[in-house]
């Protein structure tokens, strides 16, 4: 019951934040030079006043700013995210078209990074000071310091072009008309490179974080108690240290799970992954306001959702927690 109330409270708060975000973004985006009509005119290779006026009228851009804002918001309140005139489709459809791809990519990257990161971090912490620790720490540092797009370029060069192991772009073999299991296998094959490159950076973060947290927890009193009980080191590491050390990692993961939705722009660009990061970037360049706002709204909502989920997970893992509403 209390959980439910808590969740409802959080959702209400999230709605307020989202509302503020919508307004801010609306103002920001409209502050950018040019408008969608101008972009379309710019791309068309020919245009005149009439052409622009028709477009602006059609897009509703001829109306005063506050009316546009009001229309957008009242649309949202009716769960209507507006229409992309450029792409001639409802924003909701466009986003839903692309969202699964992004979720798949970031989800895979997320799972990969957290699993790999935690394992590497624990391995380093357990062997602190030994060569394995040094190797993991150095590797994590290097990954952390390398530009993501750079890794992506190198990965394509090596694994697609030189070795031919993985496709270099896209989410599926276009036109192969695979179905069922074979289809998913194909998608998985395409997923390897982008998910890995996107995940590696976060792997580095989790590894470093886990290592630090693990070492810190290992110095706590209850670990000494566990030793005094005669437990084996492996069991102490697993049941006592790791479980406590993982908590800050969970927090970070929650924060980042939301952020990588927006952060996938680079990966989606390099790998031509048809996700919403790319949709956002294109929409920005095309001043496709509604789409851009929609993507922002959705990804902010994701962030809030993931934060909530993290807090709920925290609740499961840590009995001490007192959630403040």
């Amino acid at each position: 019951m209390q959980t439910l109330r808590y969740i409802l409270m959080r959702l209400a708060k999230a709605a307020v934040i989202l509302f503020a975000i919508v307004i801010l973004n609306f103002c920001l985006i409209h502050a950018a030079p040019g408008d969608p009509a101008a972009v379309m005119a710019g791309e068309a290779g020919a245009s005149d006043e009439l052409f622009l006026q028709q477009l602006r009228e059609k897009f509703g851009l001829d109306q005063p700013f506050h009316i546009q804002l009001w229309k957008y918001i009242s649309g949202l309140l009716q769960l209507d995210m507006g229409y992309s005139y450029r792409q001639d489709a409802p924003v909701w459809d466009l986003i839903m078209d692309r969202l699964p791809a992004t979720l798949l990519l970031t989800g895979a990257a997320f799972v990969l990074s957290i699993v790999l990161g935690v394992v590497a971090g624990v391995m380093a912490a357990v062997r602190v000071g030994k060569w394995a620790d040094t190797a993991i720490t150095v590797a994590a540092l290097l990954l952390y310091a390398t530009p993501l797009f750079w890794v992506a370029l190198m990965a394509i060069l090596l694994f697609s072009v030189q070795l031919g192991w993985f496709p270099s772009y896209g989410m599926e073999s276009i036109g192969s008309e695979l179905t069922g299991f074979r289809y998913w296998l194909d998608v998985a094959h395409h997923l390897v490179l982008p998910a890995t490159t996107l995940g590696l950076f976060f792997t580095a973060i989790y590894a470093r974080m886990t290592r630090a947290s693990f070492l810190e927890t290992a110095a706590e009193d209850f670990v000494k108690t566990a030793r005094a009980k005669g437990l084996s080191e492996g069991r102490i590491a697993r049941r006592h240290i790791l479980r406590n050390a993982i908590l800050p990692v969970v927090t970070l993961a929650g924060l980042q799970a939301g952020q990588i939705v927006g952060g996938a722009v680079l990966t989606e660009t390099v790998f031509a992954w048809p996700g919403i990061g790319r949709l956002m970037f294109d929409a920005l360049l095309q001043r496709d306001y509604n789409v851009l706002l929609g993507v922002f709204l959705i990804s902010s909502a994701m962030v809030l959702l993931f934060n909530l989920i993290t807090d709920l997970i925290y609740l499961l893992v840590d009995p001490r927690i007192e959630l403040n509403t």
Partner: protein
Amino acid sequence: PKSGGRINVVVQPEPPGLMLGLIQNGPTQNVAGNIYESLLRYDKDLNPQPSLAKEWTVSDDGLTYTFKLHSGVKWHDGEDFSADDVVFSADVFLRETHARFRVGLEHVESITAPDAETVVFQLKNPFGPFLGMFEAGTMPIVPKHIYEGTSFKDNPANATPIGTGPFKFEEWKKGSYIHLVKNEDYYIDGLPYLDEIYWQVIPDAAARAVAFETGQIDVLPGGSVENFDVPRLAGMDNVCTTTEGWEFFAPHSFMWVNNREGWTAKPKFRQALMYAMNREFMKDVIWNGYAEVAHSPVSSKTRFYDTDVAKYEFDPEKAKALLDEVGYDGTPVRILPLPYGETWNRWAEAVKQNLDAVGVKTEIVATDVAGWNQKLSDWDFDLGFTYLYQYGDPALGVGRSYISSNIAKGSPWNNVSGYENAEVDQLFADAALKASAAERQELYTKAQAQIVEDVAAAWLLELSFPTIYRCDVKDLVTTAIGVNDGFKDAWLDR
């Protein structure tokens, strides 16, 4: 030729829509040129060829154009195509939606369909380039039965384009690909040969190159990879390139030079700019040789180019002398690059270096398409990169950039420089209305000489966009618009 097979082509950027009657930007034409058709096609010398019209006649006074249409043509939804569709498209639909086509319509008195397979265009006055206006991008024929009486821009059918072309729209997975399939009921037996075309969206130029290399892509239409990549890709086994298929467009690059204010308003200063630029270097290095130096507002690849036009060769000393003469005081000149990819950025940098070298201070103003458009439309620039199509005739593709009646804020496609010369205005006006090619040449030669003398704009290069494709793709580029309608004839030798 063999039938069958599937082909993968890059489309870049992802088009905003495929309804060619509404949108005529590059990628839309690439894809939709195979869905929609017009009355004619043009061979590489810009001679008209049959398309929806199987034959046509022009009256001697140059005022009456009569087209006989193919019979048995069906729209992709199974409805019959008829001359009414043509009249509707030209007279109603495109009049409302197509800015460039409207220019031609000004010379048209009436468009009629005496019978279901005949269309007659009656002109008010002779209009030299009129026969060049029946290309799919200029005058796409749209289905009357779907659009008549509706709001064209909001018609839901825009999402599933219906044409008469050799390929039908099948699926568009946004951000990923557009799938076209063979039109089984195409009115020419045996055509097309291909079963399907996948137009793939790959946002990153390097990724496009890799996709071609790894065999996932068969055709890279012109401009889809950076020029630096072309020689490498062209050098691969079983890869062919061609610079053909751009004759109709003859892309012509130049910088708008703000003729209104600042130093660029001084003709001598503009001449100095011309002498300062090493356009051979730009051609060889930035365009990898896939270009020619542009000496005139008219492309050397189209009709009416004057080979004797005065040429500004690379001559920094002369540039400096001219700058001294006008007393240039070091006020920075703003360069607005074209936000179309790395090549264009490098180009702006090269221009900047050339100008810096003769002592002209410069500053590159980076923007995206929207910003570029806005700055040009608002005349907020000193030098602004652009490239324009010639559309086969100076009356269609050149005059618009230099005549004073075309000076208006709000569009980057009119006389953005703000060049005003009554004599030039008159020359263009006269030339358009002449039917005889010789008379027209004379007028255009005069116009070119004057515009070049005044440096109304800073011409850079006549661009070629090599199409890169696997050699087993045959007959890909057969017309003056290349892949835009190229898959009608293409076949796979596999």
